Each structure stands twice: as C-alpha cells, then as structure tokens.
C-alpha cells in the first residue's frame, strides 16, 4: 500500500464517523513483514497524523514469523504491537502445509522467530490451523506449546473460502474426531490449571456460564462496519475480512467502495452493499430463528456461508459445526461433570 493510499485510508477512516472509540489496525495480508520496519514506522506516523481526536489505536500483526529479527522486536515493543504468529504445532504437523517455495518446511524458521520474540520479552500469541492430520495429536500439540513457552493459543480450522474450495475437515467422520481432539485438549489445559490460554475456551466459557454475556459480541463478522477491510489499492469492504480479494458469481468482487473515490456513506448506499447486507441479514435471521447455539455464535461467518452454501442467506456451515457447536458441546459436557476415564486401572 503506497504512502498516498495509507494517507487516504486513515483520512477516510477518521473522517467517516465509523470510529467513535478506539480501534485496532490489523496488518494482515499474505505476510505483512515482507515490508520493512521503516514502512510501518511511517504508517504509524500517518495514523497519528490523522487521529485528531486522540482515539486509542492499537496495531496488530499476524505473521508467519520467519522474518522476525531484532529490528522487528524493537518495533513491536516500541509500539506495543499485538503479535500473532502462525504455527501449526510441532514440525511434523506444521511442515505438512507450510512450506518454502523449494518445498522445505518452515517450522525451524518460525521457531527461530518465536525464540527471538521470547528473548526480547515481546508478548505474542500463536494461531494454529487444525487440519484432519492434527486431530490425533492433542498431546503432541499441548507438549509443543508448553515446551516452547507458548502461553496463548488460538485454533483456526481449515476453512472453505474462495479458491480453498475443500477442507480436510470436510470428510466423513471428522466431527467425532474433532470433538475428541477438543475434549482431550480441554482436559490437558484444565489439568494444568489453564496455564495455556486457549482463545476458543476463554471466549466461550464465560458466555456458557452467563458470566460474560453481553461483554463482547460472539462475532463481529455479521455486523456491518464493525470490521473494515482495505486492500493495497484502497478497495474496501466490511463483514468477514477474507471477502476482500475474493470473487463471486453473485456480486463480482466483494469490495463495496474505494477510499480514493467513495465515501463510506456512498458505499453503504450503493447497490452492492445493500444486496450483500440484505442477504447477510436474512441468513442471520434464519440462524437466530433456527439455531439453539445462536447466542453463543452470533450467526457464523458470512464468508463461510457464501463459499460453503453458495449464499449469505443460509445457515449452518462446517465452521459452525466444528468451531462453534462442537466446541460448545464439549465445554458444556466438561463443565457438567468431572473428568472420568474410560478404563480404570486394576486395584482401584
């Protein structure tokens, strides 16, 4: 994204009226760290220059971690950047899917990056993508996090989106294995007095217990304007961030405007936004009426609905079945009864 576009983006954001309180800029894309530290130093200056109201603006990086060095650690510390590193567990799981252009695994380079963050006391969390191969290795994943001093973990599932038209988690029998994995991982974390923070557990347990209901919405992806995603050319959209850059037969691309040519008002008054938002609202309404997990889910992710079901105006997806229903069911079961073993050793 050019400096001119950066300037226009933040002028657009701060003048749009969409931000009354603070917000977080998530530098995402393929790999944000392929650009130099100096680029982001300048970007943060630009954000400040347009932030006349003195709103609290945080910065977040989601990175594959392979380029982390001392300069990046200095930058992260100086700007209190929320760092997320993508690592799918031990090398035998991670290197299945995360490879260099020559086909080698990237795990050792990611771990080098993580160790640099740790040596400089830069807080970070990891995101691990669960594939079919991961589901038999809850203990190996747990050992990996503990042995490497990783204390904050988020699990993403291998989703169906855009060109990623299938998922290894879409196979028959996967839901049972997914539930076993989540149950096993929950037990391991619970036995360790929740020493590892798992996003899926930490966010759902308060909602299930009713302690945190209303404190935060189950998802922002269904709320127009809650997330604004902007690409390097200034094209923008809202709802699921993954929508930006994908193509569809119904809508063409999902961009609802461009910061160089449109205002937020003109974008949300446009035909494409009204079409998309209407379909999403109808799908959301169906979820609300038909799904008993709605209060813990908030209606799922529009991007999954579109690319799995062919329409925003739809309900259940694989993401719902696994990342919401299965996890909720497992947590409820675990909270209802103490841990029991299928086989009791002799003599007990």
């Amino acid at each position: 994204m050019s400096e001119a576009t950066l300037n226009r983006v933040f002028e657009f954001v701060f003048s749009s009226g969409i931000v009354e309180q603070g917000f977080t800029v998530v530098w995402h894309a393929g790999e944000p760290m392929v650009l130099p530290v100096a680029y982001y130093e300048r970007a943060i200056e630009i954000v400040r220059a347009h932030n006349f109201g003195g709103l609290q603006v945080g910065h977040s990086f989601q990175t594959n971690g392979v380029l982390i060095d001392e300069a990046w650690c200095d930058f992260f510390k100086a700007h209190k950047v929320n760092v997320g590193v993508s690592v799918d567990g031990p090398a035998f799981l991670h290197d299945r899917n995360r490879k260099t252009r020559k086909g080698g695994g990237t795990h050792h380079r990611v771990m080098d990056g993580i160790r640099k963050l740790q040596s400089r006391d830069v807080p970070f969390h990891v995101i691990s993508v669960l594939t079919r191969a991961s589901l038999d290795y809850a203990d190996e994943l747990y050992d990996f996090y503990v042995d490497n001093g990783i204390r904050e973990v988020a699990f993403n599932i291998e989703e169906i989106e855009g060109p990623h038209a299938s998922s290894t988690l879409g196979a028959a029998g996967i839901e049972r294995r997914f539930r076993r994995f989540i149950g096993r991982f929950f037990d391991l974390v619970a036995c360790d007095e929740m020493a590892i923070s798992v996003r899926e557990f930490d966010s759902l347990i308060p909602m299930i217990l009713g302690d945190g209901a209303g404190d935060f919405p189950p998802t922002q992806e269904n709320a127009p304007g809650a997330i604004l995603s902007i690409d390097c050319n200034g094209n923008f959209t809202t709802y699921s961030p993954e929508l930006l850059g994908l193509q569809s037969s119904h809508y063409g691309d999902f961009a609802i405007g461009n910061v160089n040519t449109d205002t937020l008002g003109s974008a949300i008054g446009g035909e494409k936004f009204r079409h998309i938002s209407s379909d999403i609202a109808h799908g959301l309404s169906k979820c609300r009426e038909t799904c008993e997990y709605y209060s813990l889910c908030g209606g799922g992710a529009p991007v999954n609905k579109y690319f799995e079901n062919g329409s925003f105006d739809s309900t259940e997806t694989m993401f719902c079945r696994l990342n919401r229903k299965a996890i909720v069911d497992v947590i409820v079961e675990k909270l209802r009864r103490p841990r029991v073993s299928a086989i009791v050793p002799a003599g007990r």
Partner: protein
Amino acid sequence: MADFRICHAARYQSRLTIAERVQVFDSARWRSATAQELAAMCAGVGDGEVSVIGIPGHLLKRWWELAESARRTKGFEVFGTDVATYFVYKEWPLQAPLLIEVVSSEDEPDGPLIQSRDMRHSGGVGTVLACINVDQKNAAVALGTESGRIRVVLEPGEGLMLPSTGILWNRSALDGSGLAVTMLLAVLSPE
C-alpha cells in the same frame, strides 16, 4: 525373520524410523537390520503386531515428578488413569481389568527373555500389553523370534504394544549401565 510384524502404531508420530530402531543379534553382537530383514519384519503377519508407541512428554515428566516426590500413592493412581485415558484417546487397544505398574531393574545387555503371558505382577498374574521406557535416556526391548533375537531401540517415553497372544521379551541395555525403569500395562488374568 520375525513371526510378528513390527510397525509404528497408528496415530503415533515417531522421530526415529523403523530402520533406525531395529537391531539383530548376530554373532554375539547387535547390528542394524538389513533392508531385507526389515522388509520381512515389517511385512510379516505371524502371531500379531508389535507396534511402537509413546507417551507424551507431559506424562513422562509427571512420572518423574511423582517418583521423586514424597506423596506418591494417590498421585500414581491418577497418573495410571491418565495413561489409560491417553491410550483411549489414541485408540490403542486396552483391556480391563488393567494394571499399570512401573518396575526397575539392573539394565543388563542380554538377559533371558521372558513370556509376556502369565507374568506375575503386583496385582496378580496377567499378560503384558505394553512396555514403556520411562528412563530419561534411550533404551531397547529385546524380542524373541523364530530365528533369533532382535531388539527395538526406544527413546524416552517410547514403548512397544505387544500381541495379546504372548511373546518373549525383556529389556536390553544399550550401554549396559544404570537402572532400567519400565512401565508395564498388563491385563490381569481372571482368578
């Protein structure tokens, strides 16, 4: 060569290959198995399957914490349950009534092989279903075959699932020194 098949258990991720593990006792010394011998051992059907398994690092660590602590009894019971639960998660076959015990012995290089069946345990007589190296160093388990003796090198926490039909086995020291600590999972015979 072997009258059972040697393999890595399903859902166990091994650091070593089978070729790196299996040794053959030949002319009074242990040597690596040849490709032909390995092919025969890995393809055989015979009386069952000897599969390499492993307990995760957190369980191995807990075992040593328990062994070195003063308050042992209750902790061992919970630990045994957790080992069994791990096996259930991995869908490795266990049978009730299950006995889990840990035995220590002098780590001798070539002791006599013993029957995994009808073995006397602390809780009675039964059949060993699995033996696990809980030492903090590599160890080996020797197995008797129709034509001789082989052994399987095991890293800390690794073990062998043995066929329920019974097999000749024993620890086999790699360096012939120290104490060998082995966790046994056994199914007790009906009295």
